[in-house]
């Protein structure tokens, strides 16, 4: 077990014939992910890295039964592609693109919640269950199989912490990136819940940042329902007020969304707080 993606994940790549699509498909296959189909309208019958390309998701589903999709479709067409995948029965959607119009994202999420589809992103680096399946941009060598579940808004921060854990010999069950906001299909709370229910995950690492309240919502859930140890690192302690730091959602307004307020909520909920990736390792070692 792991969460979201596992050995039985069969991946469909939307926008497989674009520059990112081709490059990432190769990286997924190199990792051992079962990439069973690609979709680009009008390109049926061709192949990318040996993966058959279909005109529509429905065709791909009929022929090769994918059960998860990763999308590299340009922002203005992302909504159509997502709707198509969901209508064809795909239950896990990874939206890598940034810059999808917000009303399109809201439409996608509305449709997803009605159909029980899990959406990661938009603007996400995706997810990796080390040794089993990679459905995203995570650099393979920074991750190894193990018992620590990691969730992060930022993709890069999830690599940084994954690398530090892996260098220290600590493996991961699944590492999930959620995207920088300001709209999220999946939040830290959702992923903490999945890790809490996953028998293979023994320790949960929650990586957060300034802005918004998703870390606070996760802290509330941790206080109520989580008995597994939680280690948390919140970045942006040194951030100035009133400026978005790279993620649209990463902004402090007055005393709202500060690292301090999140750290306090998480500590109250029983999480151990780290201030650097190295300290995440130290805390995990202490927890045994």
């Amino acid at each position: 077990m792991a969460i979201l993606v596992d050995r039985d994940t069969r991946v469909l790549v939307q926008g497989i014939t674009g520059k990112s699509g081709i490059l990432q498909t190769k990286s997924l296959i190199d990792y051992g992910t079962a990439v069973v189909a690609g979709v680009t309208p009008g390109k049926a019958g061709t192949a990318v890295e040996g993966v058959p390309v279909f005109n529509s998701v429905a065709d791909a589903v009929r022929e090769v039964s994918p059960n998860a999709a990763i999308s590299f479709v340009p922002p203005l067409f992302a909504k159509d592609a997502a709707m198509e995948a969901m209508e064809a029965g795909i239950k896990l959607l990874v939206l890598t693109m940034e810059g999808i119009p917000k009303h399109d994202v809201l439409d996608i999420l509305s449709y997803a919640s009605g159909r029980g589809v899990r959406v990661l992103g938009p603007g996400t680096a995706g997810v990796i269950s080390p040794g089993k399946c990679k459905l995203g941009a995570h650099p393979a060598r920074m991750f190894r199989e193990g018992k620590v579940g990691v969730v992060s808004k930022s993709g890069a921060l999830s690599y940084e912490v994954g690398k530090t854990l892996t260098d220290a010999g600590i493996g991961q069950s699944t590492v999930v990136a959620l995207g920088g906001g300001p709209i999220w299909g999946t939040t830290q709370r959702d992923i903490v819940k999945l890790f809490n229910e996953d028998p293979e995950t023994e320790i949960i690492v929650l990586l957060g940042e300034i802005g918004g309240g998703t870390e606070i919502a996760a802290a509330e859930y941790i206080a109520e329902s989580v008995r597994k140890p939680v280690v948390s690192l919140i970045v942006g302690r040194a951030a100035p007020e009133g400026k978005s730091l790279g993620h649209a959602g990463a902004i402090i307004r007055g005393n709202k969304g500060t690292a301090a307020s999140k750290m306090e909520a998480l500590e109250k909920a029983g999480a151990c707080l780290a201030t650097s990736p190295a300290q995440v390792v130290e805390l995990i070692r202490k927890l045994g």
Partner: protein
Amino acid sequence: MKLYEFQGKALFREAGIPVPRGAVVTASDRSGLFAPSAVKAQVLSGGRGKAGGVLLVSTQAEAEKAAGSILSMELKGEPVRALLVEEKMNIRAEYYLAVTFDGEAGTPLFMASASGGMDIESVAEHSPEKILKLPVDPLWGLTDYKLRAMADFLGYENKKEFASFARKVWTLFREKNAVLVEINPLVVTDSGLVALDSKIEIDDDARPRLKDLFEKNLAEQAALTGVEGEADHGTITYVPLEGNVGLISDGAGTGMLTLDLIRDLGGEAADFCEMGGLTSPEVMYSAMDQVFSDKKDIKSLLVVLIGGFNRMDEMAEGITAYLREHKVSIPLVVRLCGTMEEEGKAIMKEAGLPVYDDLRTAVADAVRFAAGGN
């Protein structure tokens, strides 16, 4: 794109949402001034009323005086360059009505309150129960029962009129790809509901499909301020700070982490410059250009790269290209790992540039160099 009140009201009028009769007045063209009226500063920031940017006048002479005084104001650092002069309303009640989105729940959100007016922020903070928050499913639209719930909450008798008003606001929100449509106050007058103010923000990501709307409103704004709309910086986020350690990262999360580590290790960052997780050699080059041209007194430059979608060979190409064309005399600390790491390191090595693997070591060295160490 944030709109001035007068621009938002033009959209309201187009959508059939009642607004007061009014005219735009500038320093060079005061012909629209009339009295009795409300003379209102046109600025993009909030809190205008509290700062004295709105004056009620009874005579033409008072209107002239108010116009002169408001046109010489600065509100939150923004010079007032235009006024909206509007007929006075006979106000029976002031409501608050807005539609935006809740990013964490991933849904549009209507907000309504019978306690409208200038102090809605303090209502939100001290009596949140006075604000009704209704998530609206974008695919279902604004349903009748939600419209009734809002009218009931506000205590507004004419439910049919309210429903028609709120539906127009919703349609505008959707069709114009707004991220915020706020009416504060929405006033009850003898003749019904009137939008007395307008605060609208349009989603910049929707610009390619709303070209005319963007062009028209940005041109109006440029004509007032004399400044062309913000240049497109691509994926780069640049925030100047106070310290002397220059910082560039290829991820927001690692950028923020590095900002923290710099401070923890006794330094201060000179900037936050984040390139986005899917970039190119050209973006790497422009990021360095941005930092070096804005921060001429930095004592070291720390470049933190961890490639997922980003390719390290491309980042190394960007860095070496910049160094070939510019003389850089301060220490450069580059941490580079991830996708195409070997290729990237080879390019750096050929250019005689050291590469770090561990973030903490890189930060420590950048801070030490900035403090004058070797």
